[in-house]
């Protein structure tokens, strides 16, 4: 008959606002405000609700894909096959939707998501079973996907149609709010639930901190790894479907410009690239920040070269700022 130990025996001061949210999210949110206000100086339309909603719509594509990338990064791994998972899914979806058989055309979206799941499964198998470093294995998978896409399409722009549902999800509005953004909110809510209310989420953070400890604790480390890569693949495919609807086509290399922004959104959101720590709110704000930054650079008609330099310098500066603020906080 053991009495339950009173949990409130240890007095702990309530964490302050900054500690709970994290310095990175605050800095990022401030950065977003600065970007919007700075943009408004150059181009007054920046502050209109229509423009902001449009930015959120574009940020949704990045955000959904970054959600998957974040799960993998929390695990302590990385997924470099994102670019051709996107392109591959887009090709599968448009090809199937362009089929003359209506039954096949209806299956375009489910099979598109299944493509992502299959790619994620291959990624997970290599990392979990063969224990190949994720960076190299997903790179090889990316190369194979590129090869398969080139072989299938002959290097030309793939033919086909875009499913109406993809167009509706990417371009439609419900009560004035872009559907893509609503979809991102749903994905985000599910991710928050997964990370903080399920055993899987606890395992995910634990595994990023110490795989060895989690293995000794009896968790099924390999299953968790494979499941995470499959989830990331599905989310990349979902993002790809949105992109297909938004651009109304699939084309070679459409996923290539997404690798750097996706990883950047996750890490400037405060998720450790080494795994085990990070908040989804950070990734959310990170995706919005990256989208605003590239939008403003586009409005200012910067050359591609200047854009790349500013983009890289901003990310590096933010990461250095986080580190120095951590140091001064004594952690």
């Amino acid at each position, binding site marked *: 008959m053991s009495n339950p130990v009173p949990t409130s025996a240890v007095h702990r001061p309530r964490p302050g606002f900054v500690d709970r949210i994290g310095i990175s999210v605050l800095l990022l949110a401030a950065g977003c405000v600065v970007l919007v206000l700075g943009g408004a100086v150059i181009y007054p339309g920046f502050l209109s609700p229509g423009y902001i909603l449009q930015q959120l719509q574009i940020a949704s594509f990045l955000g959904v894909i970054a959600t998957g990338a974040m799960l993998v990064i929390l695990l302590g791994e990385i997924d470099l096959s994102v670019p051709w998972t996107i392109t591959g899914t887009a090709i599968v979806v448009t090809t199937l939707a362009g089929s003359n058989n209506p039954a096949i055309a209806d299956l375009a979206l489910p099979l598109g998501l299944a493509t992502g799941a299959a790619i994620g499964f291959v990624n997970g198998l290599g990392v979990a079973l063969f224990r190949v470093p994720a960076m190299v294995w997903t790179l090889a998978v990316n190369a*194979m996907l590129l090869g398969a896409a080139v072989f299938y399409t002959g290097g030309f722009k793939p033919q086909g149609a875009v499913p109406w549902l993809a167009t509706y999800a990417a371009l439609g509005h419900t009560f004035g709010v872009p559907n893509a953004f609503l979809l991102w909110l749903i994905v985000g809510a599910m991710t928050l639930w997964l990370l903080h209310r399920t055993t899987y989420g606890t395992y995910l953070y634990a595994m990023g901190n110490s795989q060895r400890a989690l293995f000794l604790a009896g968790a099924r480390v390999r299953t968790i790894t494979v499941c995470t890569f499959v989830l990331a693949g599905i989310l990349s495919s979902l993002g790809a479907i949105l992109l297909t609807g938004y651009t109304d086509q699939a084309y070679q290399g459409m996923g290539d410009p997404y690798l750097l922004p996706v990883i950047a959104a996750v890490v400037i959101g405060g998720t450790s690239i080494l795994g085990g720590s990070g908040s989804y709110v950070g990734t959310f704000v990170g995706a919005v920040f990256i989208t605003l930054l590239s939008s403003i650079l586009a409005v200012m008609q910067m050359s591609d070269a200047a854009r790349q330099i500013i983009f890289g310098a901003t990310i590096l500066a933010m990461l250095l700022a986080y580190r120095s603020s951590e140091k001064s906080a004594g952690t």
Partner: protein
Amino acid sequence: MNLLRRNRSLAITIAALLVLFAIFIAIHPRGFSVYVLTIWFNQGTLLGLAAIAQFFVVLVRGVDLSVGPIVALTNVAASYLLIGSPGGIALGIVAVLVLGAICGLANGVAVVYGRVPPIVTTLASGSIFSGLALLLRPTPGGGIDENLSDALTYDIYGVPASAILLIVVLLALTISLRFSLLGLTMYAIGSSEQSASMTGVRVGRVKLAAYGMSGIFSALTGLYVSMVTLTGDPAIGPAYTLNSIAAVVLGGVALTGGVGSPLGAVAGALILKTISSLMFFSGLPPLAQPFFEGLVLAVAISLGALGVFRIRNRLELFQ
């Protein structure tokens, strides 16, 4: 025999390279000739130097995603500087190498003193470097002194100049890594940063040196690209980043640091190049070649990882 046992994985890599090379010569329509050998070595040297650049960073537990962008930046810089009087060209070469070293050291400073993880640092700095390359030369162009190019890309009495270059670089690196304090401390840091620090190694400085060396070798790659292509092209970067990582892994350099040699890295690079040349002559439809290149890469990496099935206790997997 003892030497062979100690370097078993390196021996396997080199054996695989020799077999692949034999197949390559066997199916090459022109057979074995100085010309074929020279082209093969030139291609191999391009990736081999990039693999050495990657090797230095991987050795101290990092990874450098900015190898390709530095190659592109130095290649573009070379296309402005390596033309004109011999004295000017010599100065130009020095300037390009210094540029590479500065890029590498900048990465090192962010990693060592800024404490930003290497993979993110080099991803962001790579964006900056390729932006700079694009700024310097938006479209491919410029020129390289042709006499210098000819001297470095043809053969000298039947021996490819690139082979001599590669062998000299490898000898110098192997000796200096094995017998100098700096080289040994790099291995020590890769094995255990904490132990190295406790032993009195100045971890920060040694890591900085490794990133600087990486930058210099990326610049050497950029210079050699200029010799082969005779132009400056800002878009050549991405392939070098990815292939240099694949090359060091194939060559038995552990991504967890502290294990591997420059010879292994170069052997890995030569294997990769031979595989893609094999694809070219294999009679496969050209459109199917990228897929098989990826497949062969995946299979080769998995073969290296087959050791996991010999492990009796799965706990050993999680170090």
